[in-house]
């Protein structure tokens, strides 16, 4: 009796096809939402990287099948991003895991996977092909029609042609069929687009839905956030596997040089000190490290006192833009935003930005409305598991800030990081890492304090208004009735007294029977 196992190598495309849940393509409802989200985010990234104010046009049209359940829809998206060099278009769209996102830089996606998953999902549900048109700005626009060979993880080019590009257009157009239950996904899709408009106030988003309705989210500014810079890995965030790869790649001949070249914020002094602590000679060739030495180095990195990562690699939105986004989409009565200083968890830098808004189009809903963003992506699912939800709903005592659940209050939390600490692969909620949690809570407290100042003022004004209303209601009546009683023709003028009401700071409010002189 012999056990015979068949080991079969599967391609990355095959792997993701078999495990499409983890990329957010569980069912036709979730799939259309993920498709739109991935495409829009790729387009935004492609424009922002060179500080081009994004212009994105998205159209979803119904092709065949029912509209009240899964049917076939055509997805069409156009952007004005930097475009894709024509020779890599096939791989960029037809090969899973080929992407620009394996360096440490804050971008929306992490794997460069989403766009391809969308096309892959479309292909397996409709047997259709994808049309990609792109130019980086020179004289030609390239158009490809392709499918993905799932087993080989290779693009199959069906057609390739070029068009003249007289206007020096740069950008990308993607068009393909996919299966979707749009009707059920619609609320989330619209919410996603609106929240994206909040967090990308410099973008024009145009959306035509399957019933031909036009949604337009116009930019409120052309000012762009500073694009993120690429950065080296920080020693705190390095694991054994990463270390092995770095050793493989390196051209450095000594450990000292290796440390200086491949790690973030490690210079000669720090490298020397570190190597001394680990007990490795600075001149040792990194390629000659024994496996147990590699493990020792990685473990020592976790505890050695390195400089904190700097935040140049991050691209926060900035207070001004966050405020512009909130104002343009919700026109609140009051808004305040606050950006924390950069911080780090496990060697990954992050910045927390928060906003708070009151009134306008925010509906009171028996609690604080929470808008969550990570690396400029709105997070719409699993709200109650998120670190921000915990801070806003369980750690804050809003009564201290004069806020009550029946008030129209919204809190916006944006966490940006080279590696957002998502709790699951679905990337919908952020783990309550102590460092992150502390930053979020402190930031929310700060804006809540500002809100409470606004609310006190508002209460004060309401009080004043109420007082004026009361005087305005009764004083003319007293004038009228007393003139009648006194048999006068005209009531006396009460305007001067009313005028003095608002300026009058301390109106007597003493107890009824206690306020008079005894004779």
């Amino acid at each position, binding site marked *: 009796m012999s056990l015979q196992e068949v080991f079969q190598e599967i391609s990355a495309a095959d792997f993701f096809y078999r495990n499409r849940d983890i990329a957010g393509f569980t069912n036709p409802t979730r799939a259309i939402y993920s498709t739109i989200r991935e495409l829009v985010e790729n387009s935004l990234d492609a424009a922002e990287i060179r500080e081009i104010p994004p212009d994105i046009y998205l159209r979803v049209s119904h092709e065949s099948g029912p509209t009240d359940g899964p049917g076939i829809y055509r997805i069409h998206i156009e952007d004005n991003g930097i475009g894709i060099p024509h020779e890599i278009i096939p791989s960029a769209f037809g090969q899973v895991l080929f992407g620009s996102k394996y360096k440490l830089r804050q971008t929306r996606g992490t794997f460069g996977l989403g766009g391809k998953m969308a096309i892959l999902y479309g292909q397996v549900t409709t047997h259709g092909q994808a049309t990609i048109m792109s130019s980086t700005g020179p004289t030609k626009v390239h158009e490809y029609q392709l499918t993905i060979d799932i087993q080989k993880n290779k693009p199959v080019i069906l057609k390739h042609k070029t068009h003249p590009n007289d206007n020096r257009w740069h950008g990308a157009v993607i068009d393909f069929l996919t299966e979707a239950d749009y009707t059920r996904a619609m609320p989330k899709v619209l919410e996603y687009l609106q929240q994206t408009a909040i967090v990308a106030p410099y973008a024009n988003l145009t959306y035509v839905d399957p019933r031909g309705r036009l949604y337009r989210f116009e930019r409120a500014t052309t000012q762009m956030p500073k694009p993120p810079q690429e950065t080296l890995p920080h020693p705190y965030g390095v694991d054994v596997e990463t270390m092995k790869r770095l050793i493989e790649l390196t051209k450095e001949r000594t450990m000292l040089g290796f440390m200086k070249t491949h790690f973030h914020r490690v210079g000669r002094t720090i490298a020397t000190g570190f190597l001394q602590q680990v007990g490795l000679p600075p001149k040792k060739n990194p390629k000659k490290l024994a496996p147990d030495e590699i493990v020792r180095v990685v473990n020592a990195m976790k505890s050695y006192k390195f400089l904190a990562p700097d935040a140049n690699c991050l691209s926060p939105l900035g207070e001004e833009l966050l405020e512009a986004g909130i104002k343009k989409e919700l026109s609140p009565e009051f808004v305040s935003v606050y950006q924390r200083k950069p911080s780090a968890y496990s060697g990954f830098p992050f910045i927390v930005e928060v906003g708070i808004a009151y009134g306008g189009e925010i509906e009171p809903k028996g609690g604080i409305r929470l808008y969550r963003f990570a690396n400029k992506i709105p997070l719409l699912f699993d709200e109650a598991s998120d670190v921000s939800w915990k801070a806003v709903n369980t750690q804050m005592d809003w009564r201290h800030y004069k806020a009550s659940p029946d008030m129209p209050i919204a809190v916006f939390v944006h966490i940006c990081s080279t590696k957002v600490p998502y709790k699951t692969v679905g990337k919908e909620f952020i783990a309550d890492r102590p460092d992150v949690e502390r930053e979020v809570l402190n930031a929310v407290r700060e804006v809540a304090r500002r809100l409470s100042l606004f609310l006190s003022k508002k209460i004060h004004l309401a009080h004043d208004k109420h*007082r004026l209303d*009361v*005087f305005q209601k*009764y*004083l003319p*009546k*007293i*004038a009228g*009735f*007393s*003139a*009648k*009683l*006194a*048999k*006068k023709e005209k*009531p*006396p*003028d*009460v305007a*001067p*007294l009313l005028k003095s009401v608002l300026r009058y700071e301390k*109106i*007597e*409010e*003493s107890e*009824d*029977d206690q*306020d*008079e*002189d*005894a*004779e």
Partner: protein
Amino acid sequence: MKKSKKVKTTKTKTPSRVEQKKSVVLSALRSLGEQLYSQLSKKQWPSVRMPSRSITNIHYDQHTRQYILGERFVRRSARNIRHIRPLTQLVWTGSFVDELAREGKTSTLRDVFYSAQAYEMSFTDQAESDDIITDLETVLEHPREDFNVFPEERSAIFGDLTIQYTVRGYEGRKLNLASHPDGMMIGPALTNAEFAECKADKIIAIEKGGLFTRFIEERVHDKYKALLIHTAGQAPRATRALIRRMSQELGLPVYIFCDADPWGMHIANVIIAGSANAAHLRELNTPDAKWAGVYASDIVDYKLPSDPLTDLDIKRLYELQKDPRYDTKLWKREIEAFLRLKRKSEQEAFSRYGLAFIVDKYLPARLKELG
């Protein structure tokens, strides 16, 4: 001794008492209006000053033998956000009753509550509007009946008194109050009437309607030359004012018959000494009126059927003991008798000796005793 007493005032040209009172009230209303008007004209916050009616400012006055208000005053000022509404209500009520008085119409407390709504002056409830009327009484120093606002409850009178109406449509008409064997209702018309001719020489006030009718059937008004008044429980203020007027203008002594319990005693006492609620008013009480029974001692003396006092009755008796209005020999003696006896009786208890006993035996004996 004259058989008939003509009241002089109606014969002369000088204004009647009722007319005088009316003009005093009207001028008090006018000066209230003028005061507020002139404050407003001077760009001052209008305000009204009146004696405080808080419990700590109510004192018993030995001189007038009634409750009066003390030295403390309150000011209702439009400048105080919590006063401006009641002040407006006060002025509105003033202008409302001013109109009533001019047109010779009357109104009830309930009416005032509803009429306010037409002026966007709504009262929260009737308690609030009643309270404002009490304020107006305090400011004007006149009971609301003088400015034509009457309560719902009505009591009755029967006897040989001829009145002359002053109310619109009946001016000068006369009526003898013995014309109807159920008695005549003491309402606005009777309250505002002049006394033309009176053949009675005393007033007997009776707590209960049954006994009031019995007295009429047994011709007490003839036999004892009495005006009979049915107080219907605690006497309404219009009735108390009428008793005082009759006692003063006609010079008649007043006797009050109630049940033999602390509550009956208090009905008699309020007619005599007034109530704390009306401490801001004068001329509602009749200090010389006499409590004529039924006493606690009568329960023993006449062997009346009786019931035990309840805890509440006993508690009330202890309260009355401390009340300055009960600080005379008779009241004290009877309160102690009740507490000793721990029993009470109703007026109807005399019926065990036959229907006429109370009139033929008890009444003459008591009247003689009181002198």
